[in-house]
């Protein structure tokens, strides 16, 4: 009897301390033919140093234009189990909280109708069910939706919004990120499921500038919690940190980007007016320092990965907005943003690219936001710029 493995290259990736994705595929392959062919095709990719997948582009569930991404093996004769191997995106729970029963429910459905492989979660934050056939798509959707789950976004639609853990388990949350994201997701179901935008649109909400969800780098609209007010200092807790060995001068004061702090060896003083709320001191001395005052968020737009003009980080649109249910002011702004994009955006042009192409002024005027120094790192350098008749009237 031969003891030779069919997957010698992938077997190498079962060694070592970090949990192995190959072992996961093998576990699924032990009871699922699709997963077995996934494993075999992947071994071939490792041998040939190339992928063997084709993008679908057509399959979906009736009525929706998103949530399913068609995927086919480019070697269907060799790997019939993955001839069709479509992705199903299931909208995750705010903050990625689950109960054991809800996870089992997902597993039961996916074992019945799919490969038994999934990602918790994909980059955008969906539960990614990895691979099923075309005829299984409607059954998968019926099973999930009848139990309270819906599909996430894909294509030129609002993608599944996501957030950091926020007030559920973090002392720094200035806004209720979980509720905001749940509320927006419910409000904009049509925008998620029936793609009508020029391209994808991502919304991410972070409770503070630590930005554990990476909102500033990967959302067309980034919501980042902040406050207007001051930092409350508990001097006895400061003393406790010092006693435990923290070098407050070196680790806190000297690293403050605005130089707004003084430590006299006993007490810490903050000149709140000069603080930019970067979160360094608060995150290192969480027992001693707390934001206080009016809580809200900075609304930024435009970040995305490199296609087409190079990667962008989100930039400030509204320096401060109160965000409380039902979030009407934010929703009104979002609708104006989408209206502008609908009017001027080309196919596959992200919001940030459009605003860069046409200039901030037109955009600001359209969405009704006034110019402010908080929106820029620095004013323009060159002495040529546009004037409009209304600017002359204003003077």
């Amino acid at each position: 009897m031969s003891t030779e493995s069919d997957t010698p290259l992938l077997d190498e990736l079962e060694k070592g301390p970090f949990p192995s994705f190959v072992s996961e595929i093998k576990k699924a392959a032990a009871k699922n033919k699709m997963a077995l062919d996934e494993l075999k095709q992947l071994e071939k990719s490792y041998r040939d140093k190339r992928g063997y997948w084709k993008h679908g582009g057509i399959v979906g569930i009736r009525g929706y234009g998103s949530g399913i991404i068609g995927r086919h093996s480019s070697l269907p004769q060799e790997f019939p189990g993955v001839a069709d191997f479509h992705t199903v995106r299931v909208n995750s729970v705010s903050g990625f909280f689950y109960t054991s029963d809800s996870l089992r429910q997902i597993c039961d459905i996916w074992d019945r109708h799919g490969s038994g492989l999934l990602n918790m979660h994909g980059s955008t934050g969906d539960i990614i069910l990895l691979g099923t056939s075309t005829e299984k798509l409607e059954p998968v959707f019926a099973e999930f939706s009848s139990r309270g789950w819906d599909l996430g976004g894909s294509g030129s639609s609002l993608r599944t919004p996501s957030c950091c853990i926020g007030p559920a388990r973090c002392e720094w949350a200035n806004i209720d990120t979980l509720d905001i994201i749940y509320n927006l997701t419910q409000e904009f179901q049509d925008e998620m499921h029936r793609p009508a935008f020029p391209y994808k649109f991502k919304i991410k909400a972070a409770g503070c500038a630590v930005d554990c969800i990476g909102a500033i780098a990967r959302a067309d609209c980034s919501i980042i919690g902040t406050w207007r007010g001051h930092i409350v200092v508990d001097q006895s807790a400061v003393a406790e940190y010092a006693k435990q060995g923290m070098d407050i001068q070196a680790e806190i004061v000297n690293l403050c980007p605005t130089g707004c702090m003084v430590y006299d060896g006993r007490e810490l003083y903050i000149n709140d007016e000069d603080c930019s709320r970067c979160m360094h001191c608060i995150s290192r001395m969480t027992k001693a320092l707390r934001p206080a005052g009016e809580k809200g968020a900075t609304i930024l737009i435009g970040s995305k990965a490199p296609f087409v003009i190079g990667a962008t980080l989100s930039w400030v649109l509204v320096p401060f907005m109160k965000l409380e249910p039902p979030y009407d002011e934010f929703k009104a702004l979002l609708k104006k943003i989408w209206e502008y994009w609908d009017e001027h955006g080309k196919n596959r042009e992200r919001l940030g690219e459009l605003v860069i192409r046409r200039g901030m002024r037109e955009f600001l005027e359209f969405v009704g936001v006034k110019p402010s120094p908080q929106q820029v790192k620095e004013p323009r350098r060159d002495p040529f710029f546009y004037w409009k008749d209304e600017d002359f009237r204003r003077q």
Partner: protein
Amino acid sequence: MDLPKRKTDIGPPNYRDFLPPVISKNYGDWKYHEVLSPGVMVHHAGSGEKIWTVRVASPRLLSTDTVRELADIADKYCGGYLRFTTRNNVEFLVSDEAMLCPLQLELNDKKYMIGGIGPRISNIVHTQGWVHCHSAATDASGLVKALMDEFADYFTTKELPNKVRLAVACCTNMCGAVHCSDIALVAIHRKAPKVNHDSVKNTCELPSTIAACPTGAISPDSSKKSVKINDDKCMYCGNCFTVCSCLEINNPDFDGVAIVAGGKVGSLRSDPKFSRLVVPFIKNNPPRWPEVVEAVSNILDAYAAGAKKHERVGEWIERIGWEKFFRITGLKFTYQHIDDFTIARETFRTSAAFKW
């Protein structure tokens, strides 16, 4: 088997139904937290109540067997409550302190890696790769496994000056948004796409294909009712392939991995930063990409040795200067490192003050 009746536009389940009772009770009233060990932290609420979190690594790609095992563990020690982090770690949410020890014992017993909290390497954010993506120029999961095996100690025990966020994107589409990571790998192509004229004619829209090119390298080929590509202008980004799959850009002999470094998303101390190119190309060498692992180790070692406490990789490099970074890492500086795309002039050195 009869299927239940489908519903549309119901949205996701309400998160409130998934929170442990101690979180529901103290929602928005957390006062502070303490990191008790590399994989355990405790959050204190204003009420005096506490919740403990035990974090373990996951490979992101999971079998239903493993998800069920996670659910069973959560039932046993956490009243059934658990969550996932943005970086695909699993967090067991413990309300009863007495469960902390037995939970960790069982996790250790089952070979889960506990850690990832604090100034360490947490899980690597990554994309689908050859596992499931049509445009992958490398395999993301394999690279992640090889790197995390090497850096396992930095997840479970050892400390660094600050947290180090690693990421892997299997093509320049960058589903993983690796452009703001401390150290990231992005798979690249180095040869212009081959045009399959017959299929282009039948399946691709020419104007949108031409418009997809950021460098204007694609133009109409009217005699063939197809497009032609100016190889000299092409930067191999692959955006055209996303619009027209008949422009075959995969080329196993030339595809591989670039390394970028110095990015971050938080605003702490300094503004969020993009990652910048440090190694333009390393060939794909599956299953364990040893050259990539070595190059990343080299950067990480230099950072661990040179950075001050709390400095992220990008902050350290900016303090010492990129020229010194290339000197101490021994990484070769090439034509490819000098920007000739959309922001080139912002990146040239406009000062005679620099280090040797």
